[in-house]
């Protein structure tokens, strides 16, 4: 029987195109194009690598505004079989709790699943909390921050990147995996698959389809609220102009301040 794989993705503003406002020094995200979150591309690739070797069916699930169907189609153009967009005004303003709940409700509705993939975090929120939240709602184990994942003899084996090394973990499905940004090279879409994706289309599910109360999702269902946003005062930097002939002085200054160490071995 084919492995049932779910990949959770998010459409985010392209960090390459985000500009820094010269006055406020905050990121201007309005101008940026929306793209598939990069770590989610790596998550999809990890799923596709499994599909290359073992018969698998990949479903993309994403919560977002109607235009996020583009990101889902892109995933289908790379080899995902089905795409579901969870979109409803009720979902807006969600923190990590109801985001996880909404995604978990959709995955529950899908029925059987073996492996759920997600990126380690999104580039616009950077919490890394949604994936593990989904695993908790579904009552399954997880392997987070993986740099490689393989499916072997019915087990999932993931290599986790930790602060002090690589931990190799084995788990029996169902399991949720989060994938490290840049851990693989995502494949490109193929024309054939792109055409198929457009033919198949993206399914849209609303709150009604999920069968959970409106108070549980979105802003209403969020335990946390943002009270204030303050611009972080950037460190004032002098941009002191140094010519090449003054580099000797600069080096002495930095050595004097202990910024660079001369590390002369004492005899």
């Amino acid at each position, binding site marked *: 029987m084919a492995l049932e794989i779910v990949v959770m993705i998010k459409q985010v503003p392209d*960090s*390459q195109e*985000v*500009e*820094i406002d010269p006055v406020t*020094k*905050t*990121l201007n995200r309005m101008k940026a194009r929306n793209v598939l979150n*990069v770590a989610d591309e790596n998550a999809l690739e990890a799923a596709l690598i499994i599909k290359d070797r073992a018969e698998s069916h990949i479903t993309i699930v994403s919560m977002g505004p109607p235009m996020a169907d583009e990101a889902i189609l892109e995933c289908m153009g790379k080899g995902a079989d089905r795409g579901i967009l969870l979109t409803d005004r009720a979902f807006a303003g969600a923190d*990590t*709790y*109801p985001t996880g*709940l909404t995604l978990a409700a959709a995955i*529950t509705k899908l029925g059987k699943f073996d492996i759920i993939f997600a990126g380690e975090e999104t*580039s616009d*929120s*950077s*919490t*890394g*909390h949604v994936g*593990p*939240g989904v*695993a*908790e*709602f579904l009552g*399954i*184990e997880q392997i987070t*921050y993986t740099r490689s994942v393989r499916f072997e003899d019915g087990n999932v*084996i993931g290599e986790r990147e930790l*602060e*002090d*090394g690589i*931990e*190799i973990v*084995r788990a029996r499905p169902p*399991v949720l995996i989060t994938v490290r940004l840049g851990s693989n090279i995502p494949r490109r879409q193929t024309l054939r698959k792109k055409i198929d994706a457009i033919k198949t289309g993206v399914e849209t599910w609303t709150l009604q389809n999920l069968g*959970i*109360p409106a*108070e549980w999702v979105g802003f209403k269902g*969020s*335990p*946390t609220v943002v009270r204030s*946003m303050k*611009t*972080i005062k950037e*460190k004032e*930097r*002098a*941009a*002191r*102009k*140094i010519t*090449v002939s003054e*580099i*000797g002085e*600069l080096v002495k200054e930095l050595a004097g301040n202990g*910024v660079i160490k001369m590390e*002369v071995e*004492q*005899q």
Partner: protein
Amino acid sequence: MTGLINAVPTDKPEEYRNVFVFLETRKGAIVKSSLEMIGIGKEIAEKVKEKLVCILVGNDLAPMAKEAGKYGCDKVLGAESPDLEDFKTMPYAHYAAQFISEEKPNIFLIAATHDGRDLASRIAVKSRTGVTADCTVIDIDPNERILLANRPVYGESTLAEILCKNHRPQMATARPGVFKVPDAQDGRNCEKDIRRVRVDPDLIRKEIIGFRPKVEFDITDADIVVSGGLGLGKKEGFQVLEELAKELGGVVGASRPAVDVGWIDRDHQVGQTGRVVRPKLYIAAGISGKAQHIVGMKQSDIIIAINSDPDAEIAKYSDYFINDDVYAAIPELIKEIRKLKGEKEVEIST
């Protein structure tokens, strides 16, 4: 398992007291980022005259409980079993959540390490409460006992203050390396409640089958980073940077475009889609200064930019700006550092 269930406001938040800190351990010792949590946890507990309670999950906890006491923890709650020797998400989250339901803490902090983030939102969901990720500023409103959890957003340009007013505990993960490790002292009072537990076999669903200690390159470990961008003009430019980095005892970094054209491996990429570095000295050679890169290096102590373009954006983020050719400036830096080292050697030998 929690099942599909919403977060619920707590009936009597005033009954929730004390600050909990989850301690991450490695080979029988508390990791540094968790000691930092003891520091900030104690600070906010004292502001509202409450206790700091540390949670330990693992095996042979006594030495770590003792250590926690030295750093200022008032009470240790532990769940101990040979089955908990290795980090496993489900049983670890189970015992942390069980301690929460028994003891009703007002606040719960975890260091935002990979294991910390792995656990935090599972504990939050089990407790049907909120969690604020990766905080860099943490305080408490002394009257309302509301946790003021501040986290940088939008590429570190903005600090968002996030509250969890109606749900308990108020949870946060906090960025490693930001808060101070408190001083250790012998003879402090610390109550210990370590329980031998029998772990439900249904919670054991993964096993750790290997561990490779870090030997490979990690740019975030370096005190000095010398980065190059497309302005180097050629792949060989990185060899020149390598030489300077070696002279400084640092490592080589790169902008995303330099990685994309294949001049250097992705491990070296600094920026929003690479690594965020905070070294003592950051040298940006031939990097124009796109937002994507700035986000990854602007927290460095000292920044030197080298760029032949007088209007390069990177200049605004630099302490020193060498407005010249990279291939004039870098060899000069190498030469001057060697010269200074030479002088020092002479001083010592005389």
